[in-house]
């Protein structure tokens, strides 16, 4: 096969462009991974909730932090058309001093024990009594807390010891690992004033059908996804990451495009000869595209390897919010290969335009 023999005999040239493609593809994978990682930190804990819709206070501008709902709101939401089940969820950011001089913020969610808002534990047991807490794996990694430990959660200027009874796998909310307490405990943690004045919940988690857009006196319902997208900073973060990805893809497409354009220019006389002795334009274009495909696929495979190595070494610590999944790797890889083929398609026109008469004009 002409294309492959050429690659074999011109190793250096093709190895160089493959290397560049690998680096660009690596960059795209890392940026995509960063996007995923940041998204996960921003609010997978919210997305992981077992319901399709969220109800917010209508004056909260879809901010979980600002949203406060009363018992009357919760009751009205439960009765709204399309709602099958609804359960209140509270949110407060709690600074946890888990060791001497060591503290971090946990996104503390209050849920009714046994309700569908309470996440399933992957280890230990569900909430049963007051002063019990479920911690997320992320928190366990961060603070080294495990089942049976006590977790001091702040109440006013004081703190209250909670017992860790289970571990869940829900992720983060607002860049903080999540912990789960009962709704009553949450009320005590979040509001220290007159108990009769305490809000009943921050938001309401809803299972049902066609509830998005429903609203009533002081509350409104949106899809969970819309709630997630309205988390402070998520949209800006998403568009930044997307811009970087598209930039990387554009650069990759251009690099491959320009490389094969130059290679084709170098070979114009050769391609003319091949046409003159009976090669069709289609045959030559296929050979070119085959080379692009090999370069792109090998480059992408190298970059995926690099990314996996990076994840295993650099990213095993919890400080860099980069994560990969098969989906993102496949998408990034496929987009680089397609980008390369698109870039190289420019050269196909050039190949088609070569007049075989040039075979007679060289000496």
């Amino acid at each position: 096969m002409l294309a492959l023999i050429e690659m074999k005999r011109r190793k250096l040239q093709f190895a160089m462009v493959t290397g560049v493609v690998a680096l660009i593809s690596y960059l795209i994978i890392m940026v995509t991974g960063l996007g995923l990682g940041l998204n996960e930190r921003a609010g997978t804990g919210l997305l992981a909730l077992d319901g399709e819709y969220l109800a917010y206070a209508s004056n909260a501008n879809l901010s979980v932090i600002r949203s406060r709902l009363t018992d009357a709101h919760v009751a009205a939401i439960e009765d709204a058309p399309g709602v099958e089940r609804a359960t209140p969820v509270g949110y407060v950011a709690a600074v946890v001093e888990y060791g001497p001089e060591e503290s971090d913020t946990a996104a503390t969610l209050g849920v009714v024990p046994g309700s569908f808002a309470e996440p399933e534990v992957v280890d230990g047991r569900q909430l049963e009594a007051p002063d019990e807490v479920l911690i997320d794996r992320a928190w366990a990694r961060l603070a080294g807390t495990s089942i049976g430990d006590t977790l001091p959660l702040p109440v006013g200027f004081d703190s209250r010891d909670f017992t860790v009874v289970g571990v869940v796998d829900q992720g983060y909310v607002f860049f903080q690992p999540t912990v789960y307490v009962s709704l009553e405990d949450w009320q005590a943690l979040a509001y220290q004033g007159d108990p009769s004045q305490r809000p009943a919940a921050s938001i309401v988690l809803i299972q049902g059908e066609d509830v998005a857009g429903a609203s009533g006196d002081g509350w409104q319902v949106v899809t969970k996804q819309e709630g997630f997208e309205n988390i402070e900073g998520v949209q800006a973060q998403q568009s930044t990451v997307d811009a970087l990805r598209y930039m990387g893809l554009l650069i990759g497409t251009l690099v491959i495009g320009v490389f094969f354009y130059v290679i084709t220019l170098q070979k114009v006389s050769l391609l003319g000869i091949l046409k003159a002795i009976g090669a069709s334009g289609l045959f030559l274009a296929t050979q070119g595209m085959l080379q692009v495909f090999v370069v792109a696929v090998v480059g992408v495979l190298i970059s995926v390897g690099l990314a996996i190595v990076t994840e295993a070494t650099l990213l095993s610590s919890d400080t860099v919010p980069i994560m990969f999944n098969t989906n993102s790797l496949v998408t990034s890889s496929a987009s680089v290969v397609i980008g390369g083929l698109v870039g190289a398609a420019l050269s196909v026109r050039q190949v088609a335009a070569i007049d075989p008469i040039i075979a007679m004009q060289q000496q």
Partner: protein
Amino acid sequence: MAILSLRGVSKSFGEGPQRVDAVRDVSLDFERGEMVSLVGPSGSGKSTLLAMVGGLLTPTSGEILVDGVDIARLGARERTRYRRDQVGFVFQGSNMVPFLTARENLLLVAGFGGMDKGALRRRADELLEELDLTHVAGHLATRLSGGERQRVAIARALMRDPALILVDEPTASLNTELGERVVDALAEEVRGRNKACLMVTHDERMAARAGRLIEFRDGRIRHDGSVASDEAARSDRG
């Protein structure tokens, strides 16, 4: 029927004052088994004529009939196929694919499709043998000497057993003895396999080895005859 007939073929390049009439109203017939030399001064239109017969240029006017089909009227796809299957072209510059070996340069035409690969492989080895190239079969084209490259080019042109062999200056980089051998090999191929060969050359000794000699001047046929009678004509003039 003639395998190749030119009927009033003309080719001009450019427009207005820049116009060059490279070939003017040429009519010729070639039979199977004929080995023809084209001679003439530089710029007389020999290569242009060859390019038209080889399907690389379309005549400005006239017809080029190969087995009765006017190749000037072929579409792009049929033209490619015509070049692939019916023409074996040896260019003035013996154009090899530099990163392929001598043998791979022959097998290259297998990739263009339309022929059995095993048969092509046997044919390649046969031609390498005939043209005394077996010992350099595995050498990259860039490492071959001028003469070896020229012979590989000839072998490549013969690979698909074309009806027409078109050769532009085949012996330019060969010494006389090797040149004669190459031309004789071509002549044998032409006679043995009933092809027609048009060979452009400046070398009178090579030209004399063909059966028929056509002399060009300013795009026109100045003389056309068998080599023997041509030599007679020359001596008449001289």
